[in-house]
């Protein structure tokens, strides 16, 4: 145990990750994700699984229905649950948790709920036929997932846009670190729908062709769907059941831009504050970070602001730290991206491997000398990594993860 670095009330405990699971556009499990990242593939292609009539930008990264397998949930109208369940089961299996009643907390990030069901019931032909509105809310996904898995612990649902599932992980980290829980399942899920694509496109936030983070010619993000979970556990609890930690969570920081619904403050004050708070919470200096997993949406605003903020926090050191944007491979899973990309950082630490930034030809002016891990991933010595997540409405969260001692 050690004292809380930022002056908290009492002693804090080490928090480790002992299980991971995912259902991503690379395939039905963590091994498919690992392979896709290593091979430097892109899962982004023309949408096939839903109606795209009238959409300007329709390149997405989808999960194949066949990867879901047998499910008690409808693969269309209950798609969030259908995706989340196998990913959560894989996570519990990997953490060797046969008795889910041990899990004290289930925390989920999801920004939009069962949107396909909502779309279905909003058209005149089916208006009002559904009388179960709460089945479509994000909270109902957490509740039904918990019941299906047999988890009787506390349930937390976060809906703060693209940091929602990172926030779910962070909240569990706090609960375990402060001794209020021993073990938690946290993650996120998000699905693709016509209305979500239409909405993001009104903001000119979507790229019709390529997702090119940090490139001068970047056109925007490309959306995706995914479910990703981690089991968080106190180090003492993991030791007591002889479970080997995959990595450690050292701290996190959050902030709010309080600036504009979709635009970031040009100085990147919000992201800066989140990163600085994360480093302070983890009791680390900037030069101890070995890799930055960028939020890197490839939108005009985000990428520049993120680099400005990184430069401010890390100074000249920033040029030496590998920075990559996994959204160039897997798209932007909005409410699920925080958990998915946390998991990517876990795999990076576990395999000592940096995932690449694809499609980057001409870096942004003033940031040409940065190491973006372009086109192909590579091996590296990684001890501490920083995972950035930013969201609409100006929410920012940075997580620090480490190789276990």
């Amino acid at each position, binding site marked *: 145990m050690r004292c809380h670095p930022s002056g908290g009330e009492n002693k804090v405990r080490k928090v480790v990750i002992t299980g991971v699971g995912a259902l991503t556009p690379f395939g039905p499990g963590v091994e498919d994700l690992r392979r896709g990242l290593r091979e430097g593939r892109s899962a982004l292609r023309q949408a096939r699984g839903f109606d795209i009539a009238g959409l300007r930008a329709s390149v997405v990264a989808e999960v194949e229905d066949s990867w879901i397998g047998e499910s008690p949930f409808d693969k269309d109208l209950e798609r969030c649950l259908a995706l989340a369940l196998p990913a959560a089961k894989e996570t519990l299996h990997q953490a060797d948790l046969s008795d889910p009643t041990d899990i004290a907390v289930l925390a989920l990030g999801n*920004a939009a709920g069962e949107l396909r069901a909502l779309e279905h019931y909003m058209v005149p032909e089916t208006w*009002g036929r559904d009388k179960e509105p709460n089945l479509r809310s994000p*909270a109902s996904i957490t*509740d039904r997932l918990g019941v299906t898995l047999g988890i009787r612990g506390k349930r937390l649902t976060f809906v703060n846009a693209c940091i929602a599932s990172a926030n779910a992980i962070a909240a569990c980290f*706090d609960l375990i670190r402060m001794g209020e829980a021993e073990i938690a399942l946290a993650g996120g899920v998000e699905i693709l729908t016509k209305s979500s694509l*239409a909405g993001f496109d009104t903001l000119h936030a979507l790229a019709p062709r390529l997702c090119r983070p940090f490139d001068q010619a970047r056109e925007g993000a490309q959306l995706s769907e995914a479910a990703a979970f981690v089991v968080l556990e106190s180090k003492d609890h993991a030791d007591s059941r002889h479970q080997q930690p995959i990595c450690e969570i050292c701290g996190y920081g959050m902030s709010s831009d*309080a600036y*504009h619904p979709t635009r970031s403050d040009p100085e990147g004050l919000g992201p800066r504050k989140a990163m600085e708070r994360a480093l302070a919470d983890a009791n680390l200096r900037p030069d101890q970070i070995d890799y930055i997993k960028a939020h890197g949406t490839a939108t005009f605003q985000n990428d520049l602001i993120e680099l400005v903020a990184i430069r401010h926090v890390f100074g000249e050191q920033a040029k030496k730290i590998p920075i990559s944007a996994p959204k160039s491979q897997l798209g932007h899973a909005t409410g699920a991206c925080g958990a998915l990309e946390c998991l990517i950082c876990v795999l990076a630490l576990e395999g000592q491997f940096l995932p690449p930034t694809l499609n980057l030809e001409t870096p942004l002016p003033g940031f040409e000398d940065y190491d973006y891990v372009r086109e192909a991933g590579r091996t590296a010595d990684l001890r501490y990594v920083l995972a950035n997540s930013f969201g609409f409405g100006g*929410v920012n969260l940075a997580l620090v993860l480490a190789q276990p001692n």
Partner: protein
Amino acid sequence: MKQSIAITGRGIVSAAGCTVEAAAERLRQGWIPQESRQFRVGGECYDVSPYYPILDGPAVGPKGLRTSDPFTINSAAAVAQALQEARIEDMSDVGLVFNTVVGPVEAGQGFFERVLLRGPVGLSPSLFLDSLINMPAAHLSMLFGLHGSMSVLSGTHPLEIARHWVRCARERTIVLGATEQFSPLAIDASEAYQVETPGGEVWPKLGQGSGAMVVETMSRAAERGLVPMTTVEAVASEAMGAEEPTRWVLQADVAERAIRRALKQASASTEEVALVCSCANGVPTLDEPEAEAIWRVLSERVPIVYPKRTFGETVGASGIVGVLSATLALANWEAPSSKGLGEPPLALVNDFDVGGQFWCVAIRAGERTK
């Protein structure tokens, strides 16, 4: 471990009025709001199931609010009251926790109808942005300049997160907000959750509402020269496991465990409890197990009050509205529906999410209330 949190500001926009004073007076009267069967969206009026609309609500939001969505206007009005009462001047490190289950569905309904019936071409960005569940909280952070941590929750008690932020020293001052506004479709769909009692009454009655509070560490409040009106001593929750989480169904065992945990967290004995603020909303499968749990822990001696009689079932806002009601009851040294209460040192405030989670918050009267 026990750590008190000071409540230093409160705000409300509700079916019982849109100031804390108005709501307090109506709570004292045991007032029951007037039902409406009409829901106005923009220029159109829809016939809907009975619900409790906001009484004397704000027509426009505070100056500087960048949306005309009623959900956000009501949220902003409640938060503005809370910040004013708390006399917060420096917002740069103030955090925000916001909760809603149904979200800004009035805006959402407009967005989906537009996309699905007329296609995506020519869609307005604000139509999309106003439909996002996190956007009202983002507007609050922008309007009031809240630069600290921000979490937006769905079906989770905001104090649950605020308490951990304080314990972990992440934030010293936090604004809590919670709102439900509903929409014609949401109100119609809520019929699935209603039950008809033998007397022909249909429960619960949805109530539009927005609640807000400012909470601070005790040290921060003391630095600012404030004596807290109330302190939060515990936030305990328990979830049901085996039931299909779609109805107002509670198990007495679950509620009992949460109440006992709250008392333990608050380091308080049952004798210290002078008031229980119930989450009862008229549905027997919720109300009876809760009453049973309270009886098991506290016997019959403790007065129980029912804020939802005055505010309706405000769903995601009910956690904050319940705590706020309890602070009013403690401040007046008497419960709205009870007499001769004396000086209640501790109040328990229950809350229930339709998905099967039960919260018990323990609050204690501060010196300022005297």
